[in-house]
């Protein structure tokens, strides 16, 4: 549905994105993850036809973004980072205007309007001025604007930025609902968001794609050992040595007086043995949990590997974590 090959965009001499290649299948949800200024918005704007690329190709729904911009624009619903709203219009008027310029058949427009309002639960505010709506409702009107012409592809730039937690959950639910019938690309710098709505994640850093895979496989790829965190009530003084003596244990790390991080070889599940050992030793088992690599770890490690390759400087974030 979306096919991007070797896309590069220069602003003067500054490189915004370099050699970006990825593709999205029909019905898939892809999260574009990266820090601010990584090139997420640039990539999205090229896809929507708002911005021409310096080199490379981008195709949406079978149409080239440069040669057939009209077809591409018809196939895409785009929610920019700042929702493009006219405050002096009511929700109804605004969506009618958007429907007209998106080329919705005038005879179908009232039905499309009702369908969109219902889908985003905007029926109650349809007669209100957009300027008077809350931030969450404005974001929903922004989403409504993107889907009114029922495009096969949705491009959502930071769809939850600036919302409160309740509104964030609502918007995520809406995106999940839309996922069934639309192919979606969304960008975010919030890591849990990528996992909450998307199965596949593209990590972009300083204009380059540093990883592209499902979240599970990204974590698996970077996992070099199995880690289990164990919390005990009364640890003896030689607890580290005794845990270290267990078969398969590589290292034991003390996080705080009662919590220990036990590391074992890859593929060796320690939980059962460790649990039994702590219980039979009578230390009072309070908690036992596997430590999985989070997307944060993946992200930081990948972006750090990139900069290590470049300059060998350790980023400040890594210092803080260790």
């Amino acid at each position: 549905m979306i096919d991007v090959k070797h896309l590069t965009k220069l602003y003067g001499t500054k490189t915004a994105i370099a050699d970006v290649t990825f593709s999205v299948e029909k019905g898939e949800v892809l999260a574009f993850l990266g820090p601010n200024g990584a090139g997420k918005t640039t990539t999205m704007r090229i896809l929507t036809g708002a911005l021409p690329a310096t080199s490379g190709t981008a195709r949406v729904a079978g149409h080239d973004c440069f040669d057939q911009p009209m077809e591409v624009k018809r196939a895409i619903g785009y929610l920019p980072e700042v929702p493009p709203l006219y405050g002096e219009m009511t929700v109804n008027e605004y969506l009618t205007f958007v429907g007209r310029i998106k080329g919705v058949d005038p005879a179908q427009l009232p039905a499309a309007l009702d369908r969109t309002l219902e889908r985003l639960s905007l029926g109650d505010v349809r007669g209100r001025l957009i300027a008077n709506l809350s931030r969450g409702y404005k974001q929903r009107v922004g989403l409504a604007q993107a889907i009114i012409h029922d495009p096969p592809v949705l491009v959502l730039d930071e769809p939850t930025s600036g919302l409160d937690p309740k509104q964030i959950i609502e918007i995520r639910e809406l995106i999940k609902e839309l996922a069934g019938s639309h192919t979606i690309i969304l960008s975010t710098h919030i890591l849990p968001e990528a996992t909450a709505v998307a199965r596949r994640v593209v990590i972009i850093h300083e204009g380059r794609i540093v990883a592209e895979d499902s979240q599970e496989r990204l974590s698996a790829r970077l996992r070099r050992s199995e880690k289990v965190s164990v919390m005990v009530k009364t640890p003896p003084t030689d607890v580290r040595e005794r845990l270290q003596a267990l078969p398969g244990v590589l290292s034991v790390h003390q996080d705080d007086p009662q919590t220990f991080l036990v590391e074992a070889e890859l593929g060796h599940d320690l939980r059962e043995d460790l649990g039994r050992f702590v219980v039979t030793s009578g230390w009072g088992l309070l908690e036992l949990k596997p430590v999985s690599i989070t997307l944060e770890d993946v992200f930081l490690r990948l972006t750090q590997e990139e900069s290590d390759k470049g300059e060998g400087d350790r980023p400040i974030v890594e210092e803080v974590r260790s």
Partner: protein
Amino acid sequence: MSPVGAITRKEIRSYFVSPIAYVVAAVFLLLIGLLSYLAVLSVSNRSLQMLRLQGNMPELNVNEMVFRPVFENMAVVMLLVVPILTMRLLAEEKKLKTMELLLTSPVTIADIVLGKFFAAFTIFAGMLALTASGALALVPFAEFRWTPILTAYLGTLLLGGLFLSAGLFASSLTENQIISIMLSFGFLLIIWLFGWAGQLFSDTVLGAILTYLSPIDHFLNMIKGLIETKDLVYFLAGITFSLFLTYRVIESQRWRS
């Protein structure tokens, strides 16, 4: 509905909601009303004087003595009022980031430029149509010919169109409405001054070029009741050129931003 129609409709609505249309029309009509009243008053004073001095009522040409100065003054009022109609057209879209919506919709940049221009032109034409009430009010009291008045209205429409297209171009250059209106004033006053400069060098080629580039002579011809191809070409070419520049500015901003 065509994209141009949709954009024009949205802009016209916005003029009345904002409510720029009401304020601009009110000020414009008030000024034109005062100018017309003063013109009529001065003519009637003069004719009374002549009646007293010569003892008979002279033939007064109302077209020459009332309507011509009113239209000439209207052009000056338009220099100040028309840029207000165009200052926000593109500057605000950029400021509010709604330009992004237009540029990612299946409409061309030409659709956007024309839609905005037609909206401003419609408001201006509406304002201008209301000034005809002054001429209609004179019908029971004076005799005059309608033809030069109609050509003067055509000239004023074209002059307004030229001012609006220049204002739209100014609006495409910035996100700031104050800068937009100052640029419009700058453009319009400079082409206006070309006319005076042209008079200074009246027997040189430069003078002829400057005079042709200024709207003054073309406009005065139409007020006199003359419709000449060169004047029509001047206005239509000027409007097309300004709109084309606007188009190019939006297109180049698309590459850079």
